[in-house]
């Protein structure tokens, strides 16, 4: 099966029902995308599929032919962090940071749709992403810091 991930073509030999998450992590060693629940309830596995935030844990790879998949490994440009990644660091928007890749991808997708989101929009569109360390206020602040720059 051929997959386009971070603008690179990959061929994987896997059953079509396998989840994108497993393919990324266990077959392609792109382990930045995390497992958290396996039922699309925590957002740790969020990637972009054609720019849309997608829970890779419930997405079968067979549905992804000819689609553009973007993971946390693919958003920095020319060695520079993506502005969302930088904003997370500047705002200390994590503790253990296990949720951070999924949070960053969800935020990237949000800012694509709403370059200048309100706090309400941030909270509702990010509500599917869990941070057990409870850094939500910092994450909101990090995302807001981007719209104002």
């Amino acid at each position, binding site marked *: 099966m051929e997959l386009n991930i971070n603008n690179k073509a990959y061929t994987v030999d896997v059953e079509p029902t396998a989840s994108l998450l497993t393919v990324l992590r266990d077959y392609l060693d792109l382990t930045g995308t995390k497992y958290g629940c396996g039922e699309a*309830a925590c957002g740790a596995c969020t990637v972009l599929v054609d720019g849309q935030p997608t829970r890779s844990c419930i997405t079968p790879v067979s549905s992804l032919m000819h689609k553009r998949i973007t*993971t946390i490994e693919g958003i920095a440009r020319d060695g520079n962090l993506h502005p969302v990644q930088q904003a997370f*660091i500047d705002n200390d928007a994590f*503790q253990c940071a296990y949720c*951070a890749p999924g949070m960053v991808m969800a935020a990237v997708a949000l800012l694509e749709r709403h370059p200048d989101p309100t706090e309400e929009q941030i909270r509702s569109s990010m*509500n599917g992403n*869990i941070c*057990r360390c409870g850094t*939500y*206020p910092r994450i909101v602040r990090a995302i807001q810091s981007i719209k104002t720059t």
Partner: protein
Amino acid sequence: MRNQDESLAAEQYELQGPSLHRFSMNRRQFFRYLGGGIAITFVAGHAWSEDGTAVASVDDNSIHAWIHVGENNKVTVYTGKVEVGQNIRTSLAQIVAEELTVPFDSIEMVMGDTALTPYDRGTFGSRSIPQMGPQLRKAAASARELLRKMAAKKLNIDVNKLKVANGKISDTKGKMSLSFSEIAQGKELIQPIDESVVVTPPDQWKICGTAVPKANAARFVTGTHRYASDMTLPDMMFGKVSRPPSFGATLKRVDLSRARAIPGVVAVHDGNFVGVCAPDPVTAERALMAVQAEWEEKAGQPSRDEIFDYLVKNAKALRDNDSNGDISAGLARATVKTNKTYYVDYIAHAPLEPRAALAKWDGDKVTVWTGTQRPFGVQEELSDAFRIPKESVRVIMPDTGSGYGGKHTGDAALEAARLAREARRPVKVVWTREEEFTWAYFRPAGVIQVKAGADASGKLTAWEFHNYNSGGSAIETQYDVGQKRIQFHPVDSPLRQGSYRGLAGTANIFARESAMDDLAMDLGIDPLEFRMKNLSNERLRNVLHACANAYGWSRRSKAKGQGHGMGCGMEKGGYVATMAEVFVNPDNGKVTVNRAVAAFECGAIINPMHLENQVLGCVVQGLGGALFEWIDFRNGKILNPLFSRYRVPRFEDVPQLEAVLVDRKDLPSAGAGEAPIYGIAPAIRNAIADAGGERLYSLPLLGMRA
């Protein structure tokens, strides 16, 4: 007051290790590993003999670490403490950088590796900053002074005419200067910590007390940091464990032939353990489904519906924590009384990274990478389970996807190691969310009975407090009361239970602070005033004042359905006061938490940015236990082992939050990962009562309604 060790002992659930541990590395091995330079060690007693070859045994409870100043200007700190998001990798490095006058980035922290770092009991109980911090500070200062002396000798100059700055030692005129690496060049020198060394006073801190960002932050936001669950090795297999259908089940028979018929699959049956592994995760999953196991389930296990009766009926001999005076005489003098029973459910830590381990055998030696708060404890577990010496077990703990007290055990490590031994290849086991919710352990459920009274002037006259099962942490009342009886009644819990953030303090302080508000309300006294009348602890009074000021307690508005409440407590050198505003919808009783302010004081602040993050994180996590987290179970089965069935706080649950950090440069720094969680549950509970809602006596407050 009990000391810290006793308060941990009161947590019957803290894991116990043997009292003595022997570590052995002689000087030659030490520098072969570290490279040349100078090293400052601290261990209990005198671990290093004069000739640097023999090693004495050291007590498990003491603190150990060492600092190495190498030939390449690199400073490396070795500590058995681990990083789970509390950011001690950052704050401990700040402390060392400060004393050595070197940039933060020049410090490398090697943490939680049983082969490289000295023994450590574990990272729990908010001990890293108050215990490891001062020792590392002294060790770094000792290294600095040793370097100064060596420089004096090398430059043939009076040591007092040399100053240390920016990682260099120079004479006061600035003519001669040596870098640390120039001094350490070609040396293999080990010195013990100088307990009398002068350390930098907090008012002169330049690196401590500042908002240094999380160490290696970019690795986390780019996904390049490898948590244990992300690790791979060549030829690695993926392991799965066949779980019993319920707690306490025993394996009657198992047929692994169908699983073994799948190409590449290795299956193991050993006692009650049944597991499989395969070269890829899809095959491993299929092999797991092919296991045919028959289990004998254990009947008669208590369910959630009957757990609280069970705990009281099955209490063991009580531990008399703190008693004096005559309760009935005190109650007889009271104008108002409260006599209530509080209930606290089991809740789950639910760290976002579930338990994971990667194991690799090399002959009869095993190396395991796993996320645990007790790497040396897991080493012990592996040594016991495989009947091999501890020296044959290496446990490495990569910075881990949180713990909150929930990762003290080495379950996944044992499973991965067992499978790897059979497969003769490295095996990784990553628990599913359902496994994590089911087979980890829980914060204990508890029943707390409070009988108390206060006289018309607002002084407490009697205080009787019984905690069944949930634990003895923060069980003593912080309030002044002559007649009191405070008892913890241990119970053999039907569910596997263990440490949690703040331990039993969340339950004990919830009950205590709720009872305080009930008394204040019945007396018609402002709850802040009532607390102050009965509180002499200066530090707690200060955080209450700080919180009240930031919250605007004295100016609080009182619209219909609006309520305000507070809760405060202290433990392990941390003092917290939290105030919350709620709205209780008069039409349907729906509760909304609108706002909360938490004031926290833990001595001199090492890193205000990470401290604020911990304080707010505690409040947010505490919202879950306060409002809606509870484990449902029946017949030894967990009924809500998924995030879709077990509600945790999310973005939309978070009220407007503010943290007030009280910096006490005159007091030693304490830990901050636990105590700030204490105030939020009683603050919300008391605010609901203030709003004219019910006086609630159970956690979670909205449990059955949410």
